[in-house]
């Protein structure tokens, strides 16, 4: 294999082998990953694959149970549940993923600086983190959502804020550990400036636990958003969103229209479960020790 000096060449090829090995070693994670991939595909293709428009009302078919062509039934306005659930996948995946990504970025950046520099910066940051963590995440989210309004952007920001402290603390702890290692000292002695030490040497070695945490947190972010919507603080009707749909459906439980509550709830469950279960697989992919195994 001719190497042109670039170790990150042909990432796709190097991912193929691990993928098959992963399937054998972590079958559960592999299934979860496939499910997630499916959900993402659904979300992306939603406008083209939904049988009905998610906002198409039809009073004549209102509150119908699962039948043909409404496989998941219809709601009180005659909207097709299946279409709404498929369409809601866009929001219900985009928001958690976006907020997790933002939180990861911010948490890593601040955590790295705080951990490496130490001193007053570290102290300041940690006290701020302590303050934020004093609030239960949900309560914090509720408060922020009430303050910032319930547009999509604000939701992303709100959920991101609740996650930042976790990544910050994790990254800081990892940096504190890694900077004592001899390879970090070696990075200094060969003449690296601090930014290279942080980005090229420490970050790659410190980030795996955060990535694994992020997969779990994404599931929790989804739950947070669904809860906020359930409580009326998140996505407002008539937009489709699993949490909001569950809230509507909860209202109809008494009259027996179970499909309005169960299917959105199941969608949330499947998505969250899948996020939780891919953690093992992600950890293995990121371990260089696994790459070399033939």
């Amino acid at each position, binding site marked *: 294999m001719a190497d042109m000096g670039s170790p990150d060449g042909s990432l796709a090829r190097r991912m193929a082998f691990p993928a098959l090995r992963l399937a054998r070693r972590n079958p559960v994670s592999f299934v979860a990953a496939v499910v997630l991939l499916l959900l993402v595909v659904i979300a992306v293709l939603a406008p083209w694959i939904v049988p009905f428009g998610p906002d198409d009302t039809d009073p004549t078919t209102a509150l119908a149970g699962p039948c043909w062509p409404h496989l998941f039934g219809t709601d009180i306005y005659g909207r097709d549940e299946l279409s709404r659930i498929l369409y809601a996948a866009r929001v219900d995946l985009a928001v958690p993923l976006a907020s997790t990504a933002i939180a990861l970025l911010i948490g890593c950046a601040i955590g790295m600086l705080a951990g490496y520099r130490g001193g007053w910066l570290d102290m300041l940051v940690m006290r701020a983190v302590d303050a934020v963590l004093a609030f239960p995440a949900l309560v914090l989210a509720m408060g922020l959502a009430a303050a910032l309004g319930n547009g999509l952007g604000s939701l992303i920001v709100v959920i991101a804020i609740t996650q930042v402290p976790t990544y910050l603390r994790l990254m800081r702890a990892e940096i504190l550990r890694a900077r004592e290692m001899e*390879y970090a000292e070696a990075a200094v002695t060969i003449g690296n400036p601090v930014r290279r030490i942080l980005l090229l040497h420490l970050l790659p*070695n410190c980030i795996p636990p955060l990535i694994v945490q992020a997969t779990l947190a994404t599931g929790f972010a989804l739950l947070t958003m669904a809860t906020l919507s359930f409580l009326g603080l998140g996505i407002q009707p008539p937009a489709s969103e699993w949490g909001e749909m569950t809230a509507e459906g909860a209202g109809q439980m008494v009259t027996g229209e179970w499909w309005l509550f169960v299917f959105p709830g199941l969608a949330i469950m499947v998505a969250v479960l899948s996020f939780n279960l891919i953690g093992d697989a992600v950890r293995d992919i990121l371990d*260089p020790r696994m790459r*070399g195994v033939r």
Partner: protein
Amino acid sequence: MSALLEVEDLAKYFPMKRLGGAGRIVRAVDGVSLTIGAGKTFGLIGESGCGKSTLGRCIMRVIEPSRGAVRVEGVDLAALSPANLRAMRRQVQMVFQDSTAALNPRMTVRRMVEEPLLLHSTFDRAERRDRIEHVLEQVGLGTDLADRYPHELSGGQKQRANIARAIVARPRLVVLDEPTSALDVSLRSRIVLLLERLREELDLAYLFISHDIATVKYLSERIAVMYLGVIVEQGSAREIIGNPRHPYTRALMSAVPIPDPDIRPNRFVLRGEVPDAAITVRGCRLLGRCPMAASVCTEAVPVREISPGHFVACHMV
């Protein structure tokens, strides 16, 4: 001949705080001076707690000394801006004791060895590639190992990779911190011979820090003996090993096992064990253990040149 490395009265103190009590100061290095000429090997020996590793780290500027100066080719490192200090690092490199921990687990050997070139040289990609291959060959690592990760290498190979990284940018001085201690006995002599060959080929100077006295003697022209943060004796390797004068050096040399059963060990014994480095002693640090101690030993210790180039810090010698 101007010295390549000059260390002058270097000291490093670590304050240790105690819960609810008075703090102590650990005087890890307490006034060390030495010079190393270009192309020479200087051995630094001592037992655990003597401060030799801390001294190495102060010289490499991994930690900041509390006092004293380190000059490389006449330039005081403390006076350099951070950017200039980084540039200076091309000249002074280090090989670490724990060869596994010193390698970034996520970098291939090639990338690791390439890094000093990226930082300090103006080579283009092809030139870097050539230099890397040349260096890997020099240290005895086949180029087929270049794309391996550290966990795929054996102990001896890892140490060779460390050495390759240290010499790739053609430094003038390499600080070797216990380079062979973690290696199996059969590998040690190979690494020692490799180091010697590299020194000749590349005109390197070495600061060889180790507690393996026989190996230090093999490679070094000059040797300094450290005890509790100070140099107690300094001289040519021949003099220090063959004619040690300081009581601590004598005790140390008499304890080194010799693979010859007819030479019975003639132990020069010091009482007790190495005390906590934190106990501040005004006079000689060997007080309390030395069989030759007298009342004068509680006063500051003079450094005497008892023969050309042979210095001893002792009242009684």
